[in-house]
Structures are given as structure tokens and as C-alpha cells.
């Protein structure tokens, strides 16, 4: 059942939140050992929430638009009293004393958080293989990755363990796993959703967004979590946009740009589906043009300097002093070093060192400084493109879900998984990945719709057209 239908049934008293939760927990119990989707299932907390929703309905109060909907949370979202690890040994056992704004908003809307899902350690990865707690398996083919870094959240929705999940997207970490798991994923405009309580990877790029099996569910979830939060200075000063109301706006009269750089190097099956999506949009009344935005080719390099630079600073706080794990030593510096050396995995170390290097005296201008200028170029290039078209179209990922270990030996090969998604993060704009057809081995393919900041309603309406045509 979709989240929208489930919430409607719960609100009407036809289904109890407790039953909906039981269904979710059964699905989790059936496959979590196999797939390693949830790092922690908060049964007690979820049952208490579900009962509260049922009590509200019984006493005639409206629990909200997500009444009784089980939601999976990426384990980089802080939840008071519930273990939160960012899939890192260094935070093993930590229970935050506070709750992320998005989680508060979900709960206020009647949703029932069921647990915390696996991710690449500190969201650094594209396959969930860098998790300290083992990889998540793709529910559609357990020999393959679910994508990453929000692989656990994507897999939870794809496996029917929860109708909705939240992920975070720094360079594609919602869209790419959504594509690889055959579901919808939205990367909102930077600032649309509060980051308060999201364990930071790269602060100027991170954005929380929804996973859902349908465009409408994703739209509803985003409406609930979006809107200004005074605890996040970078949050946009406006309420959540109306999205559900615009789902059926269609694309008639819209100008769509099929971007050559957003399919370049993708597998043939992926390219074919993007072409088919262009045709579907055209058939729905859009005018499709082909265009090139050469600046997008610089995205990967800029991203792998900017994101690690911010990460190197964001992750400095994990030092064994205030929370999380400590590896004992008889002197502070040695304790810090032992804690971080044993607490972080290799990918995290790689990025911390890369970022430290890019910011260090003598290299700042050549690397980090130059990357920030490229970012300016990227924003200008998108702006010019949006003078010509309303929406950009491309692939989400270069291939269908790949096999475990295929890209772990060569970091650069893994980084290339995000080549089509990264530019949106650098520009702080919005994008949606929507499943469209299948490719190799019958695995799903996601196509990506990109728009300027605050264009979520337009993008979701276009995604809905593809969803119907698929």
C-alpha cells in the first residue's frame, strides 16, 4: 500500500497504525538478516508511536498527513535515545540527546519511525560497502549493491520494509540508490529541508530527502519535512512548498533539455531508457531539445575537493573526548590518533586526508580555491541552461546496480558512479530520480530530472508523467 493510501486508511480508522507497523516489522524480520538494511530497529519506540496515532484516531484527533506510516531513517539522522552511528565504529553505542528536525516533523505528521538504516560510513560512498557494519544488499538482486550512500533507506523501501524512508544526498546519495533499487528519490533544493540533526558530511552540499515507491508519496513526504527551521541558518526562509497539489500539472508546454553530459559514458541500456523518457515527455506535450553543458564535466573534480575539505573539518570532532568510542592511550594526542585510526574506515580516512591536503597551506589556491571557482562556473552554466529550458533530463547513474567489490579497489571508479548527480549538489539545486524501464539483467534504471532551486513541484509533475508512462 502506498504511504498516501495507508495514511488515509489510518485517518479513516480502517487500518490501525499498530497493524501497519506490524506489517512493516514482518517485512523487516523476513529479510533484514539477508539484506542488512536496518542497523537498529526501534521496536519499542515505534510501537509506542503507533499506539499514540491509534489513540488519536480513536479520540477523534487527526494524527496528520502521514498517520501511521512506517518510515525508515538513514542512520546519520539523530534520534534522541536511539543508537545513531553514521555506520561508523567511532560512533558505535552513541545515543544522541536530541532529535533531528526532519524526524520531529515526521512524527508530528503522524509517521512512525521504525529504525535506522545502513549507509556508507559517514555517507562517503556509492554502494553502502564502506559501512563499518557490513554492506546492504540490493533487494532486487542480493549479489549486487543497492547504491549509496543511502543504500539502506533505498533498500528498505524497495523491499517493502517501509513505504517511506529518508536519506541524505551530498553528491547523489539519494538519487543513485533510488535508481539502483527502482524507486523514487528526491534531492531537494539546498536549504529547503533543515539539516539540523543530520550528521554532517559536507555541509554546503548535504540535503535530506525522501525515498518512496511513487512520486506522490515522495511529494507528500517532502511537504512534511520541508520548510524553514530557525535551528538551521542555511534553511530557506519560507514554508514548505505545495507539491501534492501540483502532481498532475503535467509537462505540456514545458521545455525539456536532454543534456549530453548527463548521459556521456553511461551504459547503452541506460542511454536507451533516457532517450525513451525524452520521447515520453514529448508525447505528453513537452518540447525536448538536446543541449550540452560542458561545465558539468568539471563537477566530479570540484566535488572531490570541496566535499572532502568540508568533511575533514566536520569529522575532526570525533576525537574520543566527548562521545562515541575512545581507544585508550596514555597521552591525549596518541589517544586522539588511536581513536580516529581505529574508528574510521579507509574511505573516510581517504577523504579526510584529501580534504586536509586541499585546504592546507600552499595547496589551498590550487585545489580548494580553484574548486570553489568552478562551482561558480557550474551555477552560471545551469542558470544559462534554465534560460532555455524548464527541466533538464539525464541519467541518474551510469549503470544498473553493480556487483559487490566491483569498484572497491579503485576509489576513482567508485567516484564516477556519481558523475551525473554531483552537479546538482554543487549548484544547490533540485533533482529527482524516477525509475524508468529496466536494463541489464532486468534491473531497474533511473532517469534524472533536474531543475533550478525551488523547482520541486515542476520536477515532481514531470516525474509523475514518466511514472505513468513507464
Amino acid at each position: 500500500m502506498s504511504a498516501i493510501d495507508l495514511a488515509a486508511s489510518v485517518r479513516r480508522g480502517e487500518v490501525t497504525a499498530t497493524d501497519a507497523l506490524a506489517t512493516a516489522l514482518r517485512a523487516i524480520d523476513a529479510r533484514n538478516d539477508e539484506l542488512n538494511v536496518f542497523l537498529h530497529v526501534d521496536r519499542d519506540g515505534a510501537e509506542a508511536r503507533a499506539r499514540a496515532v491509534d489513540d488519536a484516531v480513536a479520540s477523534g484527533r487527526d494524527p496528520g498527513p502521514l498517520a501511521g506510516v512506517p518510515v525508515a531513517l538513514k542512520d546519520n539522522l539523530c534520534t534522541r535515545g536511539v543508537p545513531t552511528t553514521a555506520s561508523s565504529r567511532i560512533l558505535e553505542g552513541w545515543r544522541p540527546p536530541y532529535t533531528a528536525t526532519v524526524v520531529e516533523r515526521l512524527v508530528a505528521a503522524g509517521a512512525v519511525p521504525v529504525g535506522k538504516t545502513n549507509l556508507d560510513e559517514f555517507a562517503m560512498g556509492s554502494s553502502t560497502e564502506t559501512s563499518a557494519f557490513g554492506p546492504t544488499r540490493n533487494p532486487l538482486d542480493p549479489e549486487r549493491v543497492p547504491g549509496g550512500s543511502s543504500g539502506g533507506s533505498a533498500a528498505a523501501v524497495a523491499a517493502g520494509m517501509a513505504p517511506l524512508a529518508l536519506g541524505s544526498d551530498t553528491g547523489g546519495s539519494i538519487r543513485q540508490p533510488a535508481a539502483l533499487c527502482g524507486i523514487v528519490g528526491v534531492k531537494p533544493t539546498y536549504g529547503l529541508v533543515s539539516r539540523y540533526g543530520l550528521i554532517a558530511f559536507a555541509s554546503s552540499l548535504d540535503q535530506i530527502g525522501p525515498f518512496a515507491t511513487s512520486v506522490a508519496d515522495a511529494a507528500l513526504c517532502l511537504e512534511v519535512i520541508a520548510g524553514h527551521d530557525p535551528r538551521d541558518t542555511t534553511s530557506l526562509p519560507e514554508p514548505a512548498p505545495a507539491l501534492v497539489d501540483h502532481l498532475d500539472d503535467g509537462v505540456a508546454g514545458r521545455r525539456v533539455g536532454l543534456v549530453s553530459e548527463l548521459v556521456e559514458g553511461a551504459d547503452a541500456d541506460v542511454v536507451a531508457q533516457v532517450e525513451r523518457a525524452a520521447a515520453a515527455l514529448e508525447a505528453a506535450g513537452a518540447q525536448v531539445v538536446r543541449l550540452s553543458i560542458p561545465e558539468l564535466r568539471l563537477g566530479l573534480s570540484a566535488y572531490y575537493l570541496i566535499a572532502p575539505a568540508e568533511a575533514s573539518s566536520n569529522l575532526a570532532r570525533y576525537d574520543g573526548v566527548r562521545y562515541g568510542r575512545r581507544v585508550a592511550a596514555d597521552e591525549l594526542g596518541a589517544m586522539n590518533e588511536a581513536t580516529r585510526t581505529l574508528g574510521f574506515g579507509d574511505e573516510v580516512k581517504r577523504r579526510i586526508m584529501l580534504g586536509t591536503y586541499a585546504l592546507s597551506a600552499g595547496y589551498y589556491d590550487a585545489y580548494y580555491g580553484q574548486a570553489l571557482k568552478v562551482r561558480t562556473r557550474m551555477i552560471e552554466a545551469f542558470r544559462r541552461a534554465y534560460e532555455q529550458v524548464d527541466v533538464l533530463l539525464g541519467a541518474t547513474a551510469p549503470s544498473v546496480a553493480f556487483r559487490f567489490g566491483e569498484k572497491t579497489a579503485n576509489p576513482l571508479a567508485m567516484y564516477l558512479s556519481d558523475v551525473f548527480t554531483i552537479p546538482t549538489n554543487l549548484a544547490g539545486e533540485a533533482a529527482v530520480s524516477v525509475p524508468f524501464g529496466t536494463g541489464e539483467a532486468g534491473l531497474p534504471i533511473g532517469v534524472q530530472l533536474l531543475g533550478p532551486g525551488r523547482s520541486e513541484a515542476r520536477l515532481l509533475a514531470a516525474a509523475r508523467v514518466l511514472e505513468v508512462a513507464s
Partner: protein
Amino acid sequence: MSRLSRDEVAHVAHLARLRLSDEELTTFTEQLGQVLEHAADLQSLDLTGVPPTAHPFELRNVVRPDVVGESLDPAEVLDAAPDAEDGRFAVPRILGEDL
């Protein structure tokens, strides 16, 4: 990979409070060198006069009123600490300077 030397990686690891074995130093030097090699496309661009973008938005002057709010329960805070004593976080002896 000539973009990055072993010594530079060792220095960066020290700045970041990470300890690397000889073997790790070799691997990381090579891997980081590859990423920087890929980033060479940026270095060759002439971007003089292009302003840097550190933030993807144009917000300004976002402030909060100077009104006291709730703090955390010190017991809960210290309970999360790997080591605490006397209401404070405890760390082993500090070699280095007074700050």
C-alpha cells in the same frame, strides 16, 4: 603518482590525527594521487576573476534573539563521555603547550 609524495601524505595524516602503517602510506599515496591527477583538469583552467562560491545560496544576516534556552542535562551529557570525573570530561595528560 608524482602529484603527492609519501611525506606529504604522512604530514596530512598527522594534521588529521590519523596513523598510517608503511603499507597504508603507500596505498593512500597512490590513491590520493589518482584523485588529484583527475583534479588536474581544474588546475589547468584559467579562472582569474571568477569569484569563489562557498555557499550555494544568497542568504544574509540570519540571526537569533539573545534569549536563554534549555541546556542539556549534565548527567546525560557526561554519561555519553568515554571518561568523566567530577562533572567534567576527562582526557589523558596533554603533551605540548599551554593554550
